[in-house]
């Protein structure tokens, strides 16, 4: 029984449209035109309890819009969503008590007061018992290492500290389902790593179901076994991260170490040259005949060492997004 199921979700935004120039401005005064812009265009997937799924795609792909529909903020244009047995848009109290949406830029913390005051407010709003509040707060403060920070007014905190406090405020009610929208955006490398460790640990410790969007491959690579790749509002891949490589890489990468420099034109006839530094040359060749090409090159050229690899995931995904 999946904990999240989405069928044919579509969300269209109406954006005001103005023809260029003065005439267009006058026209739009009288009759404002709208363009229907599909942000999410027929998305379907299911997620089981305890899964940590990565949602990746370029800017404007529809990741945030999907998460907003899943958490009940947006009314879907069409399609069915079921999260924990609820229709999110109804925003039933028992539904909201079990989910959380964390967005990189959003802040629910009171700016002028210490973060602790917001935690206390949420304690009342979510009707958390004192015992549970203390227990969860303590474990979150410990994992995130912010014991000395929660008593300082939020406006005096650094971006990283604030983000950690936002996380505590969003997780203090121990949600079963968590939507994380670009949680590492704007953080330095060390903080990004801390946060990844935290997400992994939270997923284990609380057996929570998480969907994480990001356009940093690092986040997804380290955290998610399963990824959903979305582009132009449509799912283009849903499966194990490793399978992206198998499914989408049409090329392999052959790296040759030569004993002396050779005419690059010979190599060019086998495939596209990616790089050549001194005696080290990398070419991309079609996967199907990569073994045969490697054999021919070994025979023809003064090869010291040869290495055949799959291309980087980043590379493949970039190709997926730039193709048409």
């Amino acid at each position: 029984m999946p904990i999240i199921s989405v069928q044919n979700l579509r969300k269209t935004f109406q954006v005001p449209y103005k023809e260029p120039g003065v005439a267009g401005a006058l026209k739009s005064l009288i009759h404002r035109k709208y363009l229907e812009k599909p942000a999410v265009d027929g998305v379907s997937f299911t997620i089981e309890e305890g899964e940590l799924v990565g949602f990746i795609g370029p800017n404007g792909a529809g990741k945030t819009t999907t998460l907003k529909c899943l958490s009940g903020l947006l009314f879907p244009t069409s399609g069915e969503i079921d999260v924990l047995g609820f229709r999110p848009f109804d925003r039933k109290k028992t539904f909201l008590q079990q989910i959380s949406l964390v967005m990189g830029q959003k802040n629910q913390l009171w700016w002028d007061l210490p973060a602790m005051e917001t935690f206390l407010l949420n304690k009342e709003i979510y009707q958390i018992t004192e015992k549970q509040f203390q227990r969860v707060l303590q474990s979150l403060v410990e994992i995130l290492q912010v014991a000395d920070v929660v008593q300082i007014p939020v406006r005096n905190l650094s971006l990283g500290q604030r983000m950690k406090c936002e996380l505590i405020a969003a997780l203090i009610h121990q949600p079963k389902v968590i939507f994380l929208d670009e949680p590492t955006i704007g953080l330095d490398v060390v903080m990004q790593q801390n946060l990844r460790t935290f997400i992994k640990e939270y997923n284990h410790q609380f057996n929570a179901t998480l969907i994480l969007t990001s356009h940093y491959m690092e986040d997804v690579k380290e955290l998610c076994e399963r990824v959903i790749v979305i582009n132009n509002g449509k799912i283009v891949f849903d499966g194990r991260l490793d399978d992206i490589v198998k499914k989408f890489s049409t090329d392999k990468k052959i790296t040759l170490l030569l004993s002396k420099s050779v005419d690059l034109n010979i190599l060019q006839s086998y495939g596209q040259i990616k790089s050549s530094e001194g005696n080290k040359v990398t070419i991309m060749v079609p996967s199907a005949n990569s073994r045969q090409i490697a054999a021919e090159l070994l025979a023809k050229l003064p090869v010291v060492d040869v290495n055949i690899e799959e291309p980087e995931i980043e590379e493949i995904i970039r190709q997926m997004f730039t193709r048409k």
Partner: protein
Amino acid sequence: MRLFRIFLLHFQSIAQHRTRSLVWFLLSLFNPFMLLLFWTASAKDNQLGIDLTVISTYYLLLVLGGSTLMAHQEEDVAVMDIQKGALVKYLLRPIPYYFMRFSEEMHYRILQGGYGIVAIIILSNIFQISLKFVSDPLFLVLALVSCVLAYLLSFTYKMLLGILAFWLIETRAIFEFAEVVTLILCGFLVPLDLLPSWLKLVAQLTPFPYMIYYPLSALIGQFSLYGLASILAIQACWLGVFFLTYKLVFGAGIKRFTAVGQ
């Protein structure tokens, strides 16, 4: 009890804004203050045949009433919450938006009410006005209930105005127009009795006098028990109508919410 603790937590956050709130308060004093000057001056040659203690008490109470009974959250609701998307943080929490906004707004009224009482004491001493209040405890309690209902009415009215932003891009002009109409019809410029009779009749058919004029008149002791009871009843009816309308309009509007910028 839980709701009360939420109120208390909100009060802390708003107490941070007490200086800004004082400035707003001083600005809001301006109008009743000018009118008070006008009426105390014309008290010297009393030709209108009106009880001037009542009038000057009324304007003094307006100092308090204008700052405690009138809610002012419509701009925040429209611009911050709906157009800039801050509504997201309310929608995600398992507690109604209406209640959270109420809990935040109310404290500004309490804060400003405190300033208002100080201002009344100072002004009544400067102008040598002897205040005329209702003295019977039952009448006083009912008048205070009427004040609470008036605030709830004003709050719900402003919520309704604010959520028009689900449909409208430009709300400022509408709010300002609504404010002028409200001020006239609720008795903020001139007590209802001094309005031209046709306008008075129009005003009585609207909910606006129930936001300021009637509750303040009740405090001064202008009503019989029967009059007071019917005012409370009508206030309750208007409140019901406003609240149901709010629920309906919000339910329709929220489908158009796009959570921009969040």
